């Protein structure tokens, strides 16, 4: 077993790389609107098709596929070199996305190249997590495995934090116009190569996992990890149990509390872009220590109890919490300071037209609690006086109380994430034997997180097409999946911590 100093070196090397991989994966998602505009113009149907592929295939197909490819490799040649490879693949793809010229410069090659690089990102992400979690778990003492592996668990949320922080900083330094219309959006992608270089340097100096080395020395490594993982009933039934009793629920809680919440306050509550993302950033900072707390508690209370409690809390409290978020931003219930309201009107010729005009009305209202709301209405009027349907956009900047309330609600939901996610690395590692651990734990994790979690916005939109639905109806998907997972986990999972993972 490693000395404490050695353990922290292992954790730092593993966590830094995993954090960077998450950062790389998230910046593409966070900048998807700009990327779409630069590489996938709506006017070109093929580019639009490639855009859809980039969105759906990377998360839903390539991530689980990456779990199989790199999981197998990790069980055959070792954890260290496999998760070095995923890191280089991820960093290289991210850097290159930042280098690809736009559609306006190289035409159809631009969306094709970006799609390929995005798929490589998905592939690398699929291989990274299982390697890092396994590598750390195989170095640490069994009675503190939940505690030590929980540091790996913080990386996904810290990766989101880092990506939002870098994007907001670059946006502020370069200016909104240079960021969205110029090339400043490329900087977060280019930065990745520096982060990856540092992380690769650290990881190269690490040794192979002692448990894997022992197996290798004894000649007991698996010859066919895929067949052993999914072809043998004893192990396959545990893969299914891990997916339907744990990672499926973890995935929807993970996604809904962070990304769905972020999207909800931007699009349903109409919170101004910078304030919305700052609220998310602060909530993430407040909740992140709970990954360690719940990881550590899982060593005493068992993994199952904590993970299932997180799922149950999410299932029970999502609707009331999201309702509170909505009401916090709802100006119809706030007292308006009527004497401070300003109305601006402007009319200009539509670009490229000599007769059609665009009429813009902006009403800025102030409220007693410090909230400010800007409602902009744009309407095109043709030379023959035909009026188009006005497009109305709202932008709300919350006052101090509203802002703090929103931070508290989102931080609470991220605490649910820490409950389901903090202990899950230790839980998955303890479920499978060393010789096929990387393969066996990677697949259920990425199906749970990537597929069940990643489907939240799609299914939520699908639900809102049904009659009688409202802005909260989309939450039924994560609520039902988390509840189902809670029932399955409660019945079929054991709460006993498996302290002997050395086969």
């Amino acid at each position, binding site marked *: 077993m490693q000395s404490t100093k050695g353990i922290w070196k292992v954790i730092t090397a593993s966590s830094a790389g995993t954090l960077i991989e998450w950062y790389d994966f998230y910046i593409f998602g966070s900048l998807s609107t700009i990327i779409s505009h630069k590489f996938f113009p709506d006017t070109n149907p093929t580019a639009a098709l490639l855009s*859809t592929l980039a969105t759906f295939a990377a998360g839903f197909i390539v991530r689980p596929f990456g779990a199989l490819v790199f999981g197998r490799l990790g069980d055959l040649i070792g954890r260290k070199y496999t998760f070095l490879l995923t890191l280089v693949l991820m960093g290289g793809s991210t850097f290159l996305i930042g280098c690809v010229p736009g559609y306006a410069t190289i035409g159809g090659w631009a969306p094709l190249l970006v799609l390929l690089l995005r798929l490589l990102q998905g592939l690398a992400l699929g291989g990274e997590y299982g390697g890092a979690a396994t590598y750390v778990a195989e170095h640490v003492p069994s009675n503190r495995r939940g505690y030590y592996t929980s540091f790996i668990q913080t990386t996904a949320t810290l990766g989101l934090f880092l990506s939002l922080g870098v994007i907001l900083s670059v946006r502020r330094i370069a200016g909104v116009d240079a960021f969205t219309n110029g090339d400043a959006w490329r900087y977060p992608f280019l930065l990745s190569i520096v982060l990856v270089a540092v992380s690769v340097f650290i990881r190269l100096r690490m040794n192979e996992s002692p448990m894997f080395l022992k197996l290798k020395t004894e000649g007991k490594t698996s010859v066919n990890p895929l067949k052993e993982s999914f072809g043998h009933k004893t192990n396959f039934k545990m893969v299914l149990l891990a997916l339907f009793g744990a990672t499926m629920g973890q995935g929807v809680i993970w996604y809904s509390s962070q990304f769905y919440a972020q999207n909800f306050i931007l699009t349903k509550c109409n919170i101004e872009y910078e304030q919305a993302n700052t609220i998310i950033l602060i909530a993430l900072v407040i909740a992140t220590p709970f990954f360690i707390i719940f990881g550590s508690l899982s060593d005493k209370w068992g993994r199952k109890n904590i993970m299932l409690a997180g799922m149950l809390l999410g299932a029970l409290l999502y609707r009331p919490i999201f309702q509170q978020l909505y009401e916090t931003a709802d100006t119809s219930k706030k007292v308006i300071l009527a004497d401070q309201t300003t109305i601006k009107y402007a009319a200009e010729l539509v670009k490229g037209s000599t007769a059609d005009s665009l009429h813009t009305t902006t009403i800025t209202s102030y409220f007693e609690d410090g909230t400010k709301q800007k409602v902009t209405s744009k309407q095109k009027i043709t030379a023959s006086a035909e009026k188009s349907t006005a497009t109305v956009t709202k932008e709300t900047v919350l006052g101090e109380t509203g802002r703090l309330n929103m931070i508290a609600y989102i931080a609470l939901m991220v605490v649910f994430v820490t409950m389901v996610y903090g202990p899950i690395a230790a839980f998955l590692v303890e479920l499978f034997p060393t010789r096929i651990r990387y393969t066996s734990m990677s697949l259920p994790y990425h199906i749970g997180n990537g597929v069940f979690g990643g489907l939240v916005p799609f299914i939520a939109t*699908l639900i809102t097409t049904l009659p009688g639905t409202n802005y909260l109806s989309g939450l039924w998907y994560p609520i039902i999946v988390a509840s189902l997972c809670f029932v399955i986990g409660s019945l079929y999972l054991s709460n006993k911590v498996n302290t002997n993972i050395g086969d």
Partner: protein
Amino acid sequence: MNQLKRILGLLWLLTGPILFIILITSAVHNINSNGNGDINKPLPWIIIISIFTPIVIGFMIFGWYAFKGEYDTPNP
């Protein structure tokens, strides 16, 4: 408890095909060339159905294993 695990196993086994049918009918109902959203395009549905088919089959196998007592807690 083992009895309940087995009975619910049957439920999981039967839920699989129902989920699959819901998925297919949702796709047929929502794919629309005039729509702008992702749920109106065929490609996301093809990807989702492709990835969900093995998951649904996995859920049915899970139910079958549960029904056969593979997840029973051994008697002390």
